[in-house]
């Protein structure tokens, strides 16, 4: 018999519209020393399973049906106090965000010792010794010293190690890890996954690894359960699921994952979760959108950046006196050719988003040059034509939930750039163009009358694209445009961007931390670290033969989801 046995589990959330079932009749088992991955997109119900096993479903959630066994003990009917004693002792949990998982006002020692003393009878000296040894096991250097520090004195990756040490405190049988590396940078992510895998083997612990990331699953899990809208659609060995999926949904999911080892032209779309209905056919020569557009391609640089620097000064203290300085962008130079996609890749804090905001003029550079179509963007615009040229740079943002004004109707959002810049004869014409643009990004006819909250993340990203197009841009900056989206939606948005680029001869500046996505999208790539570009080159070249040691590290540590042929 399996160590952890979940039978026929249905989790319900009653609300004003009735009872919502977060999971429906899910059956899962986990053995000792085994890592079971649960993968799925948002709304699949994967996280609630972990919470239900722990007996920590957030109100008003409840187990509607089913049984949960740990060895011979039935967990779901256990009284609260008995269940509490098992938590941490038999089943432990690792949370997503290490920055918020630890009590900021208590030392690491206090939190560890408290947990150890609660579950193991070791005495205070013994508990402390064990705490130090745990920190050592999770790879924290100099544990004797660091144990007496507070959480804020640890970096994100180190904090997640502390969280793992806390989960291991009482030698649990099962660990539930809920997106344990999602909040971490790529290089840290690889280290934490290695640590988790090794600890499971070493201590013979069973683990449920909940994640949305196929790369993480394929590198870490022994078996994979695929969930879709609360249902378990497929379960099997990792290799079988990733190489030879059976269920239609799994196939769609796998085909939407950007492969790390090759560039594919387009993501194939499979019937599941398709939001748009194919690019609408426009005769661009006759449409507003096609006016004043050129088809020139080639080596002419549309954007030139020279020796760009940005120093942020944090203001603090009485009446805003000057504080600390941060050099966010340091001596950055590059050129983007017309019609191409130029990628900037880097980890958090590398300065890649700051560059986007220096180009758009949201931030003023400390020094350097930004030239777009021969126009110095840092100089004060001399004519209306200069202003209109400047507006030809538009941007698609990272967070679809904050990039649309929630108080405006969608058609007004899309029409606003046309109206502000007097690009159409009348307001009515502007609205009608806006509706066309919404159709161009594959939204239906009624979309314009509604407010943003009526749309999903992917649909909102389409609205965002339509708004950018309403300025008749030639240059589109995409700042992590899909990092907040599910992988199948990501594939659709990336396809849409590629199609629009081809039809409108757009130049893209694509900013991301996600190397496999970059490989699919970019012609040229610049790799950034600490505000500097360490390497620039042809995209395939960067992946096949990286020159700089940092690029080599990034490429070797990126989550690998490879596709054959």
């Amino acid at each position, binding site marked *: 018999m399996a160590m952890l046995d979940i039978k026929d589990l249905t989790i319900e959330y009653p609300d004003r519209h009735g009872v919502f079932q977060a999971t429906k009749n899910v059956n899962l088992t986990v053995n000792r020393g085994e890592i079971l991955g649960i993968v799925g997109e948002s709304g699949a119900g994967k996280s609630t399973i972990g919470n239900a096993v722990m007996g920590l479903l957030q109100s008003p959630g409840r187990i509607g049906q089913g049984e949960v066994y740990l060895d011979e003990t039935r967990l779901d009917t256990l009284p609260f106090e008995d269940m509490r004693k098992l938590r941490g002792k038999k089943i432990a949990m690792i949370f997503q965000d290490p920055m918020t998982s630890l009590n900021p006002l208590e030392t690491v020692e206090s939190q560890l010792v408290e947990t150890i003393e609660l579950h193991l009878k070791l005495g205070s000296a013994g508990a402390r010794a064990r705490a130090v040894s745990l920190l050592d096991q999770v790879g924290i250097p100099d544990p004797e010293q660091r144990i007496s520090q507070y959480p804020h004195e640890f970096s994100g990756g180190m904090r997640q190690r502390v969280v793992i040490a806390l989960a291991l405190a009482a030698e649990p049988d099962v660990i539930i890890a809920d997106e344990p590396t999602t909040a971490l940078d790529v290089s840290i992510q690889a280290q934490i996954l290695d640590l988790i895998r090794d600890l499971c083997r070493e201590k013979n612990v069973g683990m449920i690894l909940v994640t949305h990331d196929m790369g993480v699953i394929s590198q870490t899990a022994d078996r994979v359960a695929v969930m879709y809208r609360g249902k378990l659609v497929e379960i099997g060995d990792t290799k079988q699921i990733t190489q030879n999926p059976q269920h239609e949904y799994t196939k769609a999911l796998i085909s939407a994952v950007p492969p790390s080892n090759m560039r594919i032209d387009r993501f194939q779309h499979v019937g599941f979760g398709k939001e748009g209905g194919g690019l609408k056919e426009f005769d661009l020569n006759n449409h507003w959108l096609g006016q004043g557009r050129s088809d020139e391609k080639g080596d002419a640089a549309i954007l030139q950046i020279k020796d760009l620097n940005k120093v942020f000064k944090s*203001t603090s203290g009485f009446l805003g006196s000057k504080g600390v300085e941060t050099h966010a962008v340091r001596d950055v130079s590059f050129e983007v050719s017309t019609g191409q996609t130029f990628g900037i890749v880097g980890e958090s804090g590398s300065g890649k988003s700051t560059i986007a*905001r220096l180009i758009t003029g949201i931030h003023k550079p400390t020094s350097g040059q930004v030239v777009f179509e021969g126009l110095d963007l840092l100089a004060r615009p001399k004519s209306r034509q200069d202003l209109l040229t400047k507006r030809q740079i538009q*941007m698609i*943002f990272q967070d679809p939930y*904050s*990039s649309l004004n929630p108080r405006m109707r969608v058609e007004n959002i899309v029409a606003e750039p046309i109206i502000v810049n007097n690009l159409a004869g009348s307001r009515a014409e502007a609205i009608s163009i806006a509706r066309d643009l919404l159709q161009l990004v594959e939204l239906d006819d009624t979309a314009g009358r509604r407010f943003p909250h009526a749309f999903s993340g992917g649909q909102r990203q389409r609205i965002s694209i339509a708004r950018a197009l309403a300025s008749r841009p030639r240059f589109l900056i995409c700042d992590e445009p899909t990092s907040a989206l599910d992988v199948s939606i990501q594939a659709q948005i990336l396809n849409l961007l590629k199609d629009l680029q081809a039809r409108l001869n757009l130049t893209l500046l694509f900013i991301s931390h996600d190397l496999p996505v970059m490989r699919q999208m970019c012609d040229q790539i610049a790799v950034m670290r600490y505000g500097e570009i360490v390497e620039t080159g042809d995209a395939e070249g960067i992946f096949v033969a990286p020159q700089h040691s940092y690029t080599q590290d990034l490429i070797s540590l990126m989550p690998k989801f490879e596709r054959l042929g």
Partner: protein
Amino acid sequence: MDTLKQFLASDFFYSFRRTPVAVVSFCIAVILILSAVLAPVIAPYNPFDPATLNLMNGFSKPMEPNAFTGETFLLGTDDQGRDVFSTILYGMRVSLFVGFAAVLLALVLGVTLGLTAAMAGGRTDAIIMRIADIQLSFPAILIAMLIFGIAKGITPPDMRNQMAIWVLILSIGLSDWVQFARVVRGAAMVERQKEYVEAAQLIGRGPFTVAFKHILPNVVASVLVIATISLALAIIAEATLSFLGVGAPPTQPSLGTLIRIGQGFLFSGEWWILFFPATTLLLLALSVNLLGDWLRNTLNPNMD
């Protein structure tokens, strides 16, 4: 029609319907406000028309015929024979007028300054918020009294009674803007970080349009909550000032003035002269506060 239908189907209205406290306090507030507005129609007597007053009617008990004249008054009369029910209606008019006007003043001032602070940032922000902090550490009532004191000094004595109401509005409004400014600034700072603001700048919107067209509609929820709570506070502040004798004059009594007058009779047995105005004040403030509390929970805007 469409908008109405949308409103009736919204979560907001659903939450209202499902919260009896909200419904009841809304009804009470509406009834009180309406009866204050319609006081000249509803009130059985005009308490400020000396011609209708009869000193013989003084100290009539509620619902009992007066010993001398045989007249019956719903809530009794005061020492001068004025009908308590009518004075309450007219008093509420003064209280509500001062309350609403003061909140309006504080709202306009606070929202403008808060929004300016959030959008301008840097030194402007620091100066505005420093002033707000300093003012916050002095209770509203103290600031109101100071303004009142100054105003009393600069207005000629024969104008004082006429000016009193406006001085009240000014002093309460000026002492209350800080709440609006702080909350609007906080909420606007959150909004300003959002990408739609950047998008608006990118398509060529100037800072003024961004602030008032894009950000302001998104902080309305916070403003609404603060305005409701402030209304209750302003009504109470007005009553307190009038009670202390630095508010509405006896010729134009507010609920606070009525309580000040009634206090003198409490210990001699004429409890109704105090009791009914006090209860009205409590009902008014409580229903507005309960509404504000419910709004805060429902709209759940980002607030300190």
